[in-house]
């Protein structure tokens, strides 16, 4: 088991290095002078030379990469071009918003997805089965930026039930401690803010959860169907156990193994895919920050954001792999 975990961690390092090489090369390979790209066309020659010295742009490529890695190890991701803030600080400020959104979306997709999948599997070929699988297929076929706009149109503009964008309404004051608004409002016993922040979370979270819910539902259904066909289930039924016990005590435990992996992977996808949802709902997370950076051609933002999101994604996949090995001991023996 330990050997497997060690092996997986060792593979992590070249992957992370590879990602850093790709991100590093992107700026150097962009058509145009990197210093000019960073400072803009109207920069003075003196400023351009300063940047070139600072980033070592006059040095050979491998020396530049070494400098890049050295700065990374010190946690220096540079400064944004337009706001002159430290990239790392900006990410740290915005990441809690993205996590809040992703966690709620993950919880929704976990619960809804597994329930839909289990019921579909136990009532195979029923109307419920066909309907939910069709809905799941529609879910993965739908552009989520469009779905978000439709939700906004129906629930915010036409019905007025939910707020249109942002994390908190204008009139609400919240003392920010952890930057997780829901948590902060509980910690400061600010119930108006608690309700308000949850209200703001609903639409983006539901939008973001559509695709993972659909994928989890399909995965659960197919895993359950595989398990329900097994002999030990027939034995359990022959023993006279109720349908409920058969499903929840015997079948589910084994069916959940691939489902847990899927859910874990979806968390990584959520973090990456939040860019679209955050942009539509003006959610001040890392995704929207990246989008703004792309629009403004702020290459330091793009570089820092990409490195950060990709690293998180890689770590989550590692945790999911290890978890899978823990649950399913057969994997680690290979």
């Amino acid at each position: 088991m330990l050997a497997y975990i060690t092996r997986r961690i060792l593979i992590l390092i070249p992957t992370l290095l590879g990602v850093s090489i790709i991100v590093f090369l992107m700026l150097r390979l962009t058509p145009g002078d990197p210093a000019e790209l960073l400072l803009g066309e109207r920069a003075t020659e003196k400023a351009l030379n300063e940047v070139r010295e600072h980033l070592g742009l006059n040095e050979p490529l491998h020396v530049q990469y070494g400098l890049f890695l050295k700065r990374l190890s010190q946690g220096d991701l540079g400064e944004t071009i337009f706001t002159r803030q430290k990239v790392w600080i900006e990410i740290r400020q915005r990441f809690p918003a993205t996590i809040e959104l992703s966690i709620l979306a993950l919880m929704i997709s976990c619960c809804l997805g597994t329930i839909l999948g289990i019921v579909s599997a136990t009532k195979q070929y029923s109307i419920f089965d066909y309907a939910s699988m069709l809905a799941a297929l529609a879910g993965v076929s739908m552009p989520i930026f469009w779905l978000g706009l439709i939700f906004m149109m129906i629930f915010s503009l036409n019905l007025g039930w939910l707020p249109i964008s942002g994390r908190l309404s204008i009139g609400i004051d919240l003392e920010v401690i952890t930057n997780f608004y829901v948590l902060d409002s509980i910690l400061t016993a600010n119930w108006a803010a608690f309700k308000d922040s949850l209200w703001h979370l609903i639409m983006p979270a539901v939008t973001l959860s559509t695709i993972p819910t659909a994928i989890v539902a399909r995965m659960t259904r197919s895993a359950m169907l595989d398990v329900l066909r097994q002999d030990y289930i027939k034995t359990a039924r022959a023993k006279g156990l109720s349908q409920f016990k058969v499903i929840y005590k015997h079948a589910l435990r084994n069916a959940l193994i691939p489902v847990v992996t899927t859910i874990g992977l979806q968390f990584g996808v959520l973090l990456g895919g939040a860019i679209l949802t955050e942009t539509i709902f003006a959610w001040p997370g890392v995704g929207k920050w990246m989008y703004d950076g792309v629009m403004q051609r702020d290459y330091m933002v793009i570089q820092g954001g990409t490195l950060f999101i990709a690293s998180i994604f890689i770590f989550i996949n590692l945790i999911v792999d290890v978890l899978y090995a823990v649950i399913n001991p057969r994997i680690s023996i290979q």
Partner: protein
Amino acid sequence: MKEKTIISTKDPHDRHPMLEQISQLWRNKTAVLGLFIIVVFILCAIFAPWISPHNPVETSLYDQLKPPVWHETGTWKNILGTDDLGRDTLSRIIYGARVSLLVAVFSVGLAFVTGTLLGAISGYFKGKIDSAIMRVMDMILAFPYLLLAIVVVAYLGPNLRNAMMAIAITYVPRFARIVRGSVLEEAEKDYVMAEHALGAKKRRIIFLTILPNCMGPLIVQTTLSMASAILDAAALSFLGLGAQPPTPEWGAMISRSRALILRASWVMTFPGIAILLAVLGFNLLGDGLRDALDPRLRD
């Protein structure tokens, strides 16, 4: 007296396996529905100039924000209404099919060729080449969902061609893995060893003998990838990183219509439905193909 019994030596169930697969696919009604949707989509794309009622880029200040025909003020001239520049929505959707089809075919085609080549080389020659190629694939897979495509287009410049290349890059690992797995499996078998012993060139062995055997999963992956490619291209265009105005692309149309969400919701709704239907069609067909062609699923 000898009785002559005529025994037919042809077993009616002994058809060509491909015919068998096609008939199994036909029995799957949802797959047929998917195929139908795709055919409509392709026909729209090819015959756009003939089907489309108006010119998709021609603006008309008199016809701004006209509602669809079923509204009180709608007319049959603009069945699905017009946008803020007076351009007919239906025409833009029909021409948008062209752009989406182009992107899907180009991206997936490029990824297919590159991925198959890399996978075949990786699986056949094994060793260091295999490790190197698989490391590169892992690096591409290390980026979640659209991030790599967004970054590539952000650096290369936002236009449709770069978007297609970016999407193609992110799809290469899917194909490479399938082909590599298949090649690894088949290369050990006797018929391949026999060809090798007969002196056949490696190229011939790989392409004429091994590859035809992994066609099934490849076809399934191609179909499903076309579905994702349409979605990804729409997403990139929505973010302003794909098709540039005035090119009619469904994602770009949705992006432009964000400001009109209250006044003219039709400008936003119909392109989204178009994306949904096109992607659904490919997904339905892909699922059906997977059931028909993937021997592991057959009982």
